[in-house]
Every structure is written in structure tokens, then in C-alpha cells.
């Protein structure tokens, strides 16, 4: 008994040291065996989904109420803008129909092999847990719904991120603005290839651009499909800033702070780096 008390006192005395060492050890473990940590994380994420889902509902409702008032205030201005835009888009529609028909006939001439069929899984965003150092969201779809690691997440007009962890009924999406996110992209007009790299700010940067690359503000940025990670041609954003030393910033199409639902894209191409990564983790 006395020995036990002595041991307890010893542990109490060094508890801070032990806990600090445990933290460091955990961080090192997650570096050495990411698959194990990922598995643990997915379990915990799954476990907390019911709670997070329940508390995210009133927040979503409140956000919608605020939005209604903002909308009412701006309805006249917006209506005018929409009319102008509609007129312009009708012209574009004609052009698109003509090009579509032309494209179809040319493809039939060339024996073009169409891209594999894509399918979507829609999911609700229930948490944005990253805080100041990380840009990620948790969504309510997982292995049961057919989500795989590496799938692209799309919201509204453009791509927002990539699935990095898959639980049984939830998964975590790393946004393209996160400091660890890299997306192979291509500039729509010049066909210049580059990599979109997040830096935790709202506007990710383009890296690996040649020094003399013709980039200008307003260029559209879409996924290039390199590496087989994402389907080609998903819109991501528009070049918003071109500075010295090849600093190019991209404004994403989607406001990452207001995501409510996302679509996870299954583009039926299990090869490439995504397939490789999937295979490696399943081996472990």
C-alpha cells in the first residue's frame, strides 16, 4: 500500500513531464505511422458525428435567417444585375449549343473515347474544425455511401477540396486553401500547367510556373487531371493577383467560409496516384 502511494506521488510529481512526453511521442507516431493515426481519427470522427450533426442544424438555420435579411436588402440591385447577366448568358447558350453540336459531330468522326462516367455523392457539412492552422471540413458521408480517399469535393461552381480521411459514415475534406493542399491545375486559356498550393489564406498560390509564363488577372484555373488524382477540367478559381517574382494568387470560385453541402465526385478512374495511395493504405 505504501509503495503504491509512493508510486502515485511519483507519477503526480512527474505528471507534466509524462504528459508532455506523451504528446511529443504521439506527434512522432503520427509521422511514422500515418495509417494507424488516420484509422483512429476516422473512428473518433464517426463517434462524434451525431453530436456535431445535432448542433450544426440550429447554426445552419440561424445562418439562413441572416441570409434572408441580407437577400431582402439587396434584392433590387441583384435583380437588375441578374437581368443583364441573363441577356448575356442567352447569347452564350446559343454559342454553347452550336459548339456542342459541332463537338459531337467531330468526335464521331475521330472515334473519340469518352471519359469514364462520373457519379456524385452529396453530403452535408457538419463541422469546420480546423481553427487557425488548418482548413478542413467534416461531411456526413463515408464508406457506406461509397466515399473513397482522394475523391474531389465540389460545391456549387467549383472544386473545394479532396477527401483525406474516410470513416464509416463521415469523412474529412482538406480544402484547397490549406497549407498542405496541392492540386495540379492548368490555366484555361494559355494551357499553362502549374500546381495550386494553399497557404491557409483565402487565396491559394500557383507554384511551379515558368518565369515567362503568360498569366494575367482573370484567367480561369481548372484541374489538369495530372496524376489521375482529380478529373480534368473541374473549375477551381480565377487568377486574382499577379505580382513580382512569379507570385500568382487565385480566388476560388466557392466561398470556403459558407459551405453547407458538398458533392464528392467519383470519376471512376481508380488508377494514378490516388489509386496508389488507396492501395498503400489498404495494404497497411
Amino acid at each position: 500500500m505504501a509503495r503504491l502511494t509512493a508510486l502515485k506521488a511519483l507519477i503526480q510529481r512527474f505528471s507534466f513531464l509524462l504528459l508532455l512526453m506523451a504528446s511529443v511521442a504521439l506527434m512522432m507516431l503520427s509521422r511514422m505511422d500515418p495509417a494507424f493515426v488516420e484509422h483512429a481519427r476516422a473512428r473518433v470522427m464517426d463517434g462524434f458525428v451525431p453530436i456535431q450533426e445535432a448542433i450544426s442544424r440550429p447554426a445552419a438555420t440561424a445562418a439562413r435567417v441572416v441570409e434572408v435579411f441580407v437577400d431582402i436588402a439587396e434584392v433590387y440591385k441583384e435583380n437588375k444585375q441578374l437581368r443583364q447577366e441573363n441577356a448575356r448568358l442567352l447569347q452564350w447558350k446559343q454559342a454553347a449549343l452550336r459548339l456542342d453540336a459541332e463537338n459531337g459531330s467531330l468526335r464521331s468522326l475521330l472515334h473519340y473515347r469518352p471519359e469514364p462516367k462520373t457519379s456524385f455523392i452529396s453530403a452535408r457539412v457538419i463541422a469546420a474544425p480546423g481553427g487557425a492552422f488548418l482548413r478542413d471540413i467534416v461531411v456526413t458521408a463515408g464508406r457506406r455511401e461509397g466515399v473513397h480517399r482522394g475523391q474531389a469535393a465540389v460545391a456549387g461552381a467549383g472544386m473545394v477540396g479532396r477527401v483525406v480521411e474516410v470513416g464509416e459514415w463521415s469523412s474529412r475534406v482538406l480544402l484547397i486553401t490549406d497549407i498542405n493542399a496541392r492540386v495540379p491545375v492548368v490555366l484555361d486559356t494559355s494551357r499553362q500547367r502549374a500546381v495550386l498550393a494553399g497557404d491557409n489564406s483565402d487565396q491559394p498560390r500557383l507554384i511551379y510556373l515558368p518565369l515567362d509564363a503568360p498569366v494575367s488577372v482573370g484567367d480561369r484555373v481548372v484541374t489538369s487531371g495530372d496524376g489521375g488524382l482529380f478529373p480534368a477540367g473541374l473549375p477551381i478559381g480565377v487568377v486574382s493577383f499577379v505580382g513580382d517574382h512569379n507570385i500568382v494568387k487565385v480566388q476560388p470560385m466557392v466561398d470556403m467560409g459558407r459551405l453547407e453541402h458538398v458533392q464528392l465526385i467519383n470519376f471512376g478512374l481508380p488508377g494514378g496516384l490516388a489509386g496508389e495511395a488507396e492501395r498503400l493504405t489498404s495494404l497497411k
Partner: protein
Amino acid sequence: MNATIWQRLDQIGRSLAPAAVTLMLVLLGMVPLCLPGWDKVAPSTALMSVYYWSIHRPDLLPPSAAFGIGLLQDLLAGTPPGMTALVLVSCHLVVETQRAFFLANAFLILWLGFGFMAFGAALLQGLLYSVFYQTLVPMQIPLVQAAVTLVLFPLFASLFISVHRAFLKEI
């Protein structure tokens, strides 16, 4: 000690209050509020809670509880596991050395002390993150978050004080 089982249960329930409040705040802090820019600078509620309770009731929120809460936050948030745990345990450690001073002084001093803690924690976490991913993490957003956390501290402190008065007066 002739406490009945109900009294014991009541006491256990009450003594869990600090940890329960912290856990609840961690989960609430992750709700997507759809306010522009909010998710990034949402105050780190866990830090406030650990700071308050390690001054007032370190027996009910021991360093091991701070560690557990930090680890849970890491697992849910996607930060490397152990990182937030390390920050919260360090906070607990620093507070413990200054506890007598904080208890003897007014709320303003407590707030000031928390200012040092909030910015210190942001810098520590930035450093850990940079080492872990071997890149320089931009620190503007974490520092803004620390400022938001500091400004909102009295609000959360009043919550802690009311929990303290309501549940923990007798024990």
C-alpha cells in the same frame, strides 16, 4: 463519511462539470457558422477553459484532463495528434506556477495573464506546426485568432464563473 450513493453520484457529477464544460465548448467551437471568415478565427475555447479551471479548480481539471481534451480536439480537427494536447498541458503547467498570484488579484490581472497565454499558445502551436510539416506557417491568422480569444475571454469567464458558483460551491 456517511454519504449515501446518491450523494456520492451527485458529487461525482458536480466534479465533472469543468471537464464537461470544456468538452462542450470544444464541440461548439467546431460548428460551421457560415459567417465570413469566422471559422478561421473562432476563439480557442479549450484554452480559455483550461486557463480558468487550472487557476480555480486544478483538482477538477488536472493536466491529464487537459491532455485528453487536447487530444480529442486534435483527432477531430485533423491537426497532428498531440499538438493541441501539448499546448494545453503547457498552459496548465505555466498557470500552476503562477496560481497563487492570479488567485490573489483582480479579474483584470487574470485577463492580462490570459493575454500572454493566448499569444504564447498561438506562437507555440505555430512553431510546432512549422516543425511538424517542415514549412513556415503564416502566423497572421493564428495571431488574429489569439486576439479574438483574448477579447472574448470575459464572456466565457463569466460562463465559467456561473458554472463554478452553481455546481462547485460545496465541493
